C-alpha cells in the first residue's frame, strides 16, 4: 500500500536535502551530487504519478531525465577537472576572481 501523499513527502524531502546540500557544501563535486538528488526527487514524482494515472507519459520523461543527468554529470566533471588543473582544488569558495 503506497500513499501518494507519502511519495510526495519523500520526494520533497529528497529535494530539500539536495537544495540544502547545494547551500552548505563547498566541494564542487558534492554540489554536483546534490543536484543529482534534486533530479532524482523529480523523477520519483514522475514515476509515481504516471503510476497513479496509469499512463506511460511520466515514465518516459523520467527515463529521458536520466539520460540528461548523465550528460550533465559529464560536463560537470569536465569542468571540475579543468578547474582542478588550473587552481589545484575544487572548493567553490575559492572561485572568487569575479565579483562586484
Amino acid at each position: 500500500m503506497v500513499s501518494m501523499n507519502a511519495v510526495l513527502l519523500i520526494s520533497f524531502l529528497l529535494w530539500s536535502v539536495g537544495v540544502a546540500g547545494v547551500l552548505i557544501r563547498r566541494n564542487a563535486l558534492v554540489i554536483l551530487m546534490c543536484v543529482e538528488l534534486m533530479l532524482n526527487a523529480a523523477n520519483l514524482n514522475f514515476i509515481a504519478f504516471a503510476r497513479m494515472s496509469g499512463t506511460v507519459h511520466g515514465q518516459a520523461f523520467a527515463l529521458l531525465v536520466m539520460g540528461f543527468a548523465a550528460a550533465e554529470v559529464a560536463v560537470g566533471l569536465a569542468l571540475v577537472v579543468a578547474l582542478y588543473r588550473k587552481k589545484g582544488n575544487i572548493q567553490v569558495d575559492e572561485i572568487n576572481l569575479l565579483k562586484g
Partner: protein
Amino acid sequence: MQKIAWLIPILPLIGSAFNGLIGKKAGKKAVSIVGVGTVVASFLTALWVFFAMKDAPGHRLDLIYGTWMATGSLTVPFGLTIDPLSGTMMLVVTGISALIHLYSVGYMAEEEGYARYFCYLNLFVFFMLTLVLGNSLPLLFVGWEGVGLCSYLLIGYAFETETAPAAGLKAFLFNRTGDMGMAIGMMALFALFGTLTIGDILNQAGHMQAEVGFGVLTFATLMLFVGATGKSAQIPLYLWLPDAMAGPTPVSALIHAATMVTSGIYMICRLAPVFSLTPITMTTIAWVGGLTALLAATIGLVQRDIKKVLAYSTVSQLGYMFLGLGSAGFAAGFFHVFTHAWFKALLFLGAGSVIHAMHHEQDLFRMGGLKEKLPITFWTMLIATLCIMGIPGFSGFFSKDEILYLAFLKSPALWAIGLVAACCTAFYMARLMALAFLGEPRDSHAYEHAHEAPMTMTLPLVVLAVGAVVAGFWGIPKVLGGTFAVEHWLEPALTYGHAEAEAGSVHEGPAMMLMGISVAAAAGFGLFGWSLYKNGTEKSERLAAKFPGAHTILLNKYFLDELVEGYLLRPTRWFGNVLWKLFDVIIIDGIGVNLPGALTRVAGDFTALLQTGRVRNYVLSMGLGVLVLLYIFLK
C-alpha cells in the same frame, strides 16, 4: 501644395547631415552657406505655409503623411499640424534661428569645431520644429527629447574647459528627469483617451467636464507639468539653466532663451483644453511659475557674470509665462513667449557681442564704458532692456502686464509676487546696462582692444531690436483701446473649436490702476538702478571733493543710497545670496544632484557587496528569492 510643409523641419536636418558628414572637408564657407541657408529656406517655407494656413478654413492645416505606428489599439499618424499656435511658434523658431545662425557665423568664426557646431545647431532646429509641428504626442516627445540631446551636445561643445561637460551632463539629467514626467503624463493621457493624436485628445477633452478633486486627469496634467518644469527650468528643476551658460553664447540665445526653454509653455498651450479641465494643476502651475519668477529675479540681483544675470532673468521670465498659463491666460502666456523670444535673444546676442569685444570677459565689474565702443550693441540692448522692464510702448510691457492682470484676477497674492519680481527685473537689468556700458572702463587693456562686431553679428541685433519693439503691438490690451488681437488669433488653437467662457479678456475695474502701479514700480526701480551704478563709487567721491556745495546733495544721495543699500538692497541681496546658496549649492548640488548620485552609489555599493563572487551566496540569494515569492503566494 501646403503639403510641402514637411520641408520646414527636413531642411535643417539636411543641413545638419551635410555639416556632420562632409562639413569638415567642405570648409568653413560651405558650412556657413549650408548651415544658414537651410534655416533661412526653412523660414521662407514656413512663411509661405503660414499664409496658406491663414487662408485655410478654420485657420488650420492638418497634414497627414501616413501612418507612423499602427498596432492593435494604437494608431499614431505621421503628420504635421499647422494652426495659429504652432504656426506662430514655427515662425518664431525659424526666424530667430535664422538670425542666430547668421550671428554664429561671426561669433564662432575662429572656433575649431565649426562644422560640428553647425551640425548640432541645425539638428536642434530640426527637433524643435518636430516638437512644434508634430501632430501627435509621440512626435512631440521625439522633438522634446531631441532638443534636450542637442542642448547637451551644444553645452558640452567646448569640452576642453572644465565646467562645460559637467554642465551639459547636469542639463541632460535634469531634462531627463522632467522627460520622465512627460512620458508618464503621456501614458496616462493614452490610458484616459485611448489615443495619442493631439487633435483627437483635444476633441474629446472639449466634451468633458472639469475634473473635481484629484483624479487621473489631474495626475496626467501634473506629470506633463513636471516635464514642462524640466524643459522650461522651473522650480525645482531650474538649476541646469544657469549652468548651461557654459555653452557658446549664440546657443544660450537660441536654445536657453528663445526657443527650447519655452517648449514647456508651448506644450501646455498645445494641450490647453486638457489643462483647463484640471483646476488643481492650473493653480499649481500659477504658484510654481510665480515663485520661480520671484526666486530667480532676486538671485539675479547679485550675479556678477553677465550671462548668469541673463540666465536668471530667463528663468524668471519663464516663471511669468507659467504664471500667465496658470491664471488661465494661455494666450497671454504664449504672447509673452512670443515677445520674450525677441528681446531675450537680443539681450543674449548683445551680451555675446560684449563678450566677444572684451575677449571672453564675462564679469560685469570688469567692464564699463563700452557705450562709445559698441554703439549698435548698446542701443539695441537698451531697447531690449526697456522691453523686459515693461516700459509702455515696448513689447514686454504688453505681455507682462496682461499676465499680471490675469494673476490679479486669480489671486492678489500672485499679483504681488509678480510685481516684486518685476521690480527686481527692472533693477538688475538697469544695473547690467549701467555696469557694462556706462562709467569708466574698469579694465583698460581689454577696453582698448574692444571693437564693434562684424556685420553678420550686428545685423541680427538690429533686426531683433526692430522685432522686439514691434512684437508688442500685436496684443494691445483692451483697456488701452486695443483688441488684444493675439487672443483672438490663437483662439481656434487654444479652445479647439469649443466655445469657452473668455476668462481673462474682460478688463474691468482695477485694470488701469494695476497697470499704472506696475509701470511706475518698474520705471522707478529701473531709474534707481541706473543712477546707482551709472558712475561707480569713485566718481561720486571725487565729485564730492570738487564741489562742496553739491556735497550735501550728493551726501544726501549717498545717504539715500546707504539707506537703500542698508535696508533695502542688502537684505534683498542677502536674501538672494541665501536663496542661491540654499537652492543651488545645498539643495540642488547637494541633494538634487549629489544625493541621488550618492544614493545610487550606495545602492550600487550594496549590490556590489551582495555580488560576492561566491557561488554559495548566490545559491542562498536564489533560495531567499524563492522564499519571498512563496510568502507572497501563501499570505
